[in-house]
């Protein structure tokens, strides 16, 4: 690997330039991905040894977690308090809250259990916006085609079809909840382009789309008399009845260290992603609770998962200052015209190519000696903000307040200095297999949001995550609310016994118990484990 240019030297060489030549257009995207994207590195894939997805490829760090032992035992169950609800929602980001709201509107009593506080999630940090095909020049068909293409045609087409057709109604529902969007002088909702797409399809509220969405959904939930929320209550195990169907969950209180059995007619898993597992040592843009708990719980219960070797490394994570490494810089700023520039002052990729391609291109520049090197040895490239502001004076302060707050905190003057960026672990493309009604392969267990898979194939476009969480969140809520009660009323860990036996027979050595709940540096420990 080449060294690249030291940061100070590169900074002095940087010039504002409004006329940089276009990047070379004849780049073979597939070869670029093969050579430089972490997902395509064969070291990042092992075959699972136990469970429904046995023999299928999985990232080694995730495989270790999926095949980990559970610290949960029968004694914890025996000592646990018991509560009942119609629908239990695990997770309180955008998917969990919208699922809870719709389940409650359908008459169900809903309990939301969440590891942190309601709304502490990746949703609240979403900056780019939410996709919905509403522009006169756009069609749901184009949205469908481009979602599939960006995902390398690995998506479940039925799920994508349903999601893109849901888009406009999702926006209307959000407005009815009290969410604001940026509008033009004719009251049309403003739209901008996402990487890997042709039409203006991303709706937004400044660069606070997720914050605005979460503020509103949280209040809607708080106002609803049929919804109860339990903050600081992560689910540490799902429970099953004698038929193996999901019948509830075991919660752990971070505050009292006590366990609670929740008996539920149906369970919606909306627990998000796994960025805080820091796959391949990457920094992450995710909140601290994103530790893949939902995948672990669902897998032990026997739910089928998919695409466990596919992750999104967002191209523009902050690389410097080091204390903020991994913090996301919204793709919206590239939509607005910001360019990526190497140490030679050259553009090297269409900034609005799909995210995986842009990520691979950045890694190619760094590997080829055209990166900018930090004292630690890490490398990045420039995100050329000063030239963008010079071209469109005033736009940063008006459209990107969250970004400006980040610059202030980082001690960077975005009017003068470009930002050093490198890819950051952002999103789990795969997850629990679901159908159009968000049913998993285990009756009684529903999934919505990042924990589920099948929608984004092997690469997601900007704004499809916020659309997914509301589209599928609402559907999960409606379906779970009408799930028929079972005659088998047991709350057992039998599925865990089966799973443990498989682990033992496969001679897997478990050193870390799952679910993780928190990254190791948060110094969390679960009592009795």
């Amino acid at each position, binding site marked *: 690997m080449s060294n690249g240019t030291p940061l100070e030297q590169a900074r002095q060489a940087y010039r504002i330039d409004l006329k940089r030549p276009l990047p070379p257009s004849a780049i073979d995207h597939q070869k670029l991905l093969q050579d430089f994207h972490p997902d395509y590195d064969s070291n990042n894939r092992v075959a699972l040894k136990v469970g429904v997805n046995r023999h299928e490829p999985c990232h080694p760090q995730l495989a270790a977690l999926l095949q980990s032992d559970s610290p949960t035992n029968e004694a914890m169950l025996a000592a646990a308090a018991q509560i009942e609800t119609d629908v239990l929602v695990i997770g309180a980001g955008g998917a969990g809250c919208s699922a809870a709201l719709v389940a409650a509107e359908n008459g169900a009593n809903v309990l939301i259990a969440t590891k*942190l506080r309601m*709304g502490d999630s990746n949703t609240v940090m979403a900056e780019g916006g939410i996709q919905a095909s509403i522009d006169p020049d756009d069609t*749901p*068909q184009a949205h469908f085609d481009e979602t599939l293409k960006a995902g390398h045609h690995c998506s479940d087409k039925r799920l994508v079809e349903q999601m893109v057709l849901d888009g406009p109604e999702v926006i209307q529902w959000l407005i009815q909840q*009290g969410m604001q969007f940026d*509008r033009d002088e004719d009251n049309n909702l403003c739209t901008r382009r996402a990487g890997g797409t042709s039409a203006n399809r991303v709706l937004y509220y400044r660069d606070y789309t997720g914050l605005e969405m979460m503020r509103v959904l949280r209040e809607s939930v708080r106002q609803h008399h049929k919804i109860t929320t339990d903050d600081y209550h992560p689910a540490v195990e799902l429970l099953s009845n004698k038929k193996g169907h999901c019948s509830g969950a075991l919660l752990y209180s971070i505050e009292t260290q006590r366990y609670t059995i929740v008996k539920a007619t149906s369970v919606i898993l909306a627990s998000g992603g796994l960025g805080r597992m820091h796959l391949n040592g990457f920094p992450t843009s995710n909140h601290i609770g994103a530790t893949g708990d939902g995948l672990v719980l669902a897998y032990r219960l026997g739910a089928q998962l998919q695409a466990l070797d596919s992750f999104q490394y967002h191209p523009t994570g902050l690389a410097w200052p080091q204390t903020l490494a991994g913090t996301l810089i919204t793709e919206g700023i590239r939509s607005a015209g910001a360019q990526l520039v190497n140490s030679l002052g050259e553009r090297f990729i269409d900034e609005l190519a799909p995210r995986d391609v842009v990520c691979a291109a950045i890694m190619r520049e760094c590997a080829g000696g055209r990166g900018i090197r930090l004292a630690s040895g890490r490398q990045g490239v420039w995100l050329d903000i000063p030239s963008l502001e010079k071209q469109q004076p005033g736009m940063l302060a008006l459209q990107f307040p969250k970004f400006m707050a980040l610059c202030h905190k980082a001690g960077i003057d975005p009017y003068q200095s470009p930002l050093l960026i490198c890819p950051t672990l952002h999103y789990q493309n795969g997850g629990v297999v679901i159908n159009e009604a968000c049913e998993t392969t285990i009756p009684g267990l529903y999934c919505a949001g990042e924990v589920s898979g099948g929608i984004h194939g092997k690469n997601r476009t900007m704004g499809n995550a916020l659309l997914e969480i509301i589209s599928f969140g609402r559907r999960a809520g409606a379906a779970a609310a009408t799930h028929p009660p079972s005659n088998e009323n047991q709350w057992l860990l039998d599925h865990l016994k089966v799973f443990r036996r498989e682990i033992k027979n496969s001679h897997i050595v478990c050193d870390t118990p799952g679910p993780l709940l928190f990254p190791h540096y*948060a110094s969390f420990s679960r009592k009795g484990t």
Partner: protein
Amino acid sequence: MTNTDTPNSHIETSIEITVNGIRLSVSANHSLIQALWKTGHPNFKSASCLEGVCGSCRIMVKYSNQPEVDMALACQSQVESGMQVVFPQYLEKESPALLNHRYQLQSSVESEQQLKAVFPEAAHCRHCHGCTVACPKGIDVEQGITLANEGKLGAAGELFINCVMCDLCTTSCPENIAPNYVALFARRTTAVNQPTPPNLANRLQALQRGELTIKY
């Protein structure tokens, strides 16, 4: 903070701070959250997004060179030698300021009366500036309450674009007003009363007429 990247910048200097009454030696050039993590100090309840938008890491902080106590977010605050920090508890869900604010979003004709009915205490504002001082986001919270009381809900809500719902303004109000919830009411009412966006309405109608389908 230092903005240099020299070969020696990874060598960390140690500084003394006080957190919830406990003296800690932490490495400089980190946010408070990162510094706590590096010392092995358990911290998982008072941190989430680390980007200053979730409000879970709110702190009261006093720096050695200033007499006043500031409100801030720990993920956005660099550690400084001699800083004293308290992570205040969130209000209980049962606290008076957070109760009795049930409402259905309505049209703007009634919204002014609705505000008075749902948040009657808002009219009791003493203009003590406590809420404004308490805001870690620099929002003129008191002005927002004044505007809301005047029926200017749109303008009131607009002041709270940066609000992360950390509840510090609510905690600080001697009249048990919940300013951030008043502002959120104002913002939501404004949203539902804006004219339907033509581009959205057209698309919804086309979908209803079955004109837009997907071919595989």
